[in-house]
């Protein structure tokens, strides 16, 4: 009998593979140090080292070695750590909110769980972590740090965060998502959110699949006396982001402040065509050559979300040309890769450029994974193999890890 005969019970096979992968014979102790400890025990009179003594000494020794190892490991690659205060982290990594339950991260970020809310912390890196909100309400304050990369998953919705504070809740029962911004900005992706909705301070996004729509309420200013309400709705005559359903007519807030802010607000409210129309009225060339970075970023988002790839490409290229050192210009390389994937070629080069410019950027793992898959499809496992190895080294639990392992195996087996 062998493992293959049990393939029908694949879950057990997967767990066996997991144990094989994770539980190995390596140790933080050097071979010499391990043997030195053994020699000390060998030199003791037999009566001396009863199990209790041995266990005590060994545990103390192990703890010291482990602490030293952690110290050096943290010094080399200081991943964030976190503590749960006023609550408990169970062995499955779950934190269930009680009175004043807080998850405090070593970079100063903090999540506060309401009673009954349930969250898990995963993929902790030196720049952030993933907070998975299973249900309930949570307040999150993310410390503003350069290249901070945080993700909050609430049900089917993902919230990409850099430095901000907001309340988020998810109900499994009603399938309702609710996000109330306090400071900063986030991008929400998930059902009905198309390629993503940008939310800024003071805005409130709510709704979900059950309700059939997502609604953005409020303008950027928290002090706005009469917050406007707008439903995220698809552009009528053009290709639309996935799943956006027609929403009832909603009052559009009167533009105020600069045009750039108005365009950003329009994008946040799903009025992509309004932005595109205004840019075309002003003259696209003029906008591309004279618009601010914020205007170009909003226009690029509007064009991408509305499915106007040709315009999006021009705007993204203009961003990169005119504001080469800015964050949006660096991100533009990734979006240009996505557009190139849809047609035209050159996606691999754009993903490579994105990774070289933003090795720790929010889209780095995606860029890596997409480049690997494209190489595999276009040139086979031989070309994709080294990228797969690199990917697994950087993102062993990333979304493309399973594919990378298969490509790596195929690449190894195809070698003469």
């Amino acid at each position: 009998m062998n493992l293959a005969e049990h393939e029908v019970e694949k879950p057990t096979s997967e767990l066996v593979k997991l144990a094989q992968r994770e539980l190995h014979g390596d140790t933080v102790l050097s071979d010499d140090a391990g043997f030195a400890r053994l020699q000390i025990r060998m030199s003791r009179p037999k009566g001396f080292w009863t199990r209790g003594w041995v266990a005590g000494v060994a545990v103390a020794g192990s703890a010291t070695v482990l602490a030293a190892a952690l110290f050096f490991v943290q010094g080399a690659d200081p991943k964030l750590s976190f503590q749960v205060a006023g609550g408990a982290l169970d062995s499955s990594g779950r934190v269930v909110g009680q009175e004043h339950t807080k998850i405090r991260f070593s970079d100063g970020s903090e999540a506060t769980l309401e009673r009954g809310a349930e969250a898990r912390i995963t993929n902790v890196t030196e720049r952030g972590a993933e907070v998975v909100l299973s249900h309930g309400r949570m307040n999150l304050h993310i410390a503003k740090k350069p290249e901070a990369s945080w993700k909050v998953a609430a049900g089917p919705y993902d919230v990409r965060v850099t430095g901000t504070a907001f309340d988020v809740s998810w109900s499994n029962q009603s399938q309702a998502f609710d996000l109330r911004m306090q400071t900063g900005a986030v991008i929400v992706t998930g059902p009905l959110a198309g390629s993503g909705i940008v939310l800024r301070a003071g805005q409130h996004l709510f709704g979900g699949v059950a309700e059939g729509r997502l609604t953005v309420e409020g303008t950027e200013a928290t002090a706005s006396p009469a917050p406007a309400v707008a439903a995220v709705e698809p552009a009528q005559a053009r290709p639309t982001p996935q799943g956006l359903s027609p929403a009832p007519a909603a009052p559009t807030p009167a533009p105020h402040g600069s045009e750039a802010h108005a365009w950003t607000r329009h994008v946040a409210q799903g009025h992509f065509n309004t932005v595109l129309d205004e840019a075309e009225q002003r003259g696209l060339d003029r906008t591309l050559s004279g618009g601010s970075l914020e205007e170009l970023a909003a226009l690029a988002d509007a064009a991408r979300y509305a499915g106007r790839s040709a315009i999006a490409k021009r705007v993204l290229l203009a961003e990169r040309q005119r504001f080469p050192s800015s964050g949006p210009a660096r991100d533009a390389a990734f979006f240009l890769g996505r557009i190139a994937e849809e047609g035209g070629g050159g996606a691999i080069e754009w993903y490579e450029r994105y990774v070289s410019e933003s090795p720790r950027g929010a889209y780095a793992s995606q860029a890596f994974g997409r480049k690997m898959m494209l190489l595999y499809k276009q040139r086979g496992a031989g070309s994709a193999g080294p990228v797969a190895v690199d990917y697994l080294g950087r993102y062993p639990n990333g979304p493309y890890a399973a594919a990378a392992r298969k490509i790596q195996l195929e690449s190894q087996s195809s070698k003469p």
Partner: protein
Amino acid sequence: MATRQVSHDAAAPGVASVPLSEADDATLACALIEKNKAAPRVAWTRFSPLVRRILRRSLGPQHDVEDIVQDVFLCLFERVHTLRDPVALKAFVIAITVRTARYEIRRARVRRWVGLSRTAELPDLRVVNADTNSQHALIHFYRALNRINERDRTAFILRFIEGMEAAEVAAALDVSVPTARRCFTRAWERVTFFAQRDPFLVDYLSKLEVTSSEEDP
């Protein structure tokens, strides 16, 4: 008992040609029996990764095995004179490791029953430094393994995780081959049964399936 000449460090200069560190298992076994001073170090270097791996896989991710690895070697050095066939040194080491692991499993089970578990289920405060998903899946997997008897569990570990042949499993457990087969087959069925009823594992495995089906190259 076989006798082989090996390069004993200072104890027997010029007797043999092969350095002990490169000698085969039988030679090393003879050196251990003859109390060659260099032999324990060579045995440690050669077998400690194997012993540590079997112990980790037998006891699970929450168990500190370093002191138990040393227990295995202390037992090996004390009992090696009972080894009848020096060629079987590796199997002898595995048998000691398995016996020690089974003892630790029974001991941990008793500790859990009397409430002395070293791994509290709900600590008030813990610091986590890395991705925890796989670790938690492992912990839940070993919880499922905790629910089957220690002989079946050990047979399962040796057969499926260590990848040993049925005959090797039988030798390590000191049972017949058909008995070993029954043990690991029964264990597989039980583990599958429990894993399918663990919500965390169901969730974890379903995500794996989605990922692999979406991204299958």
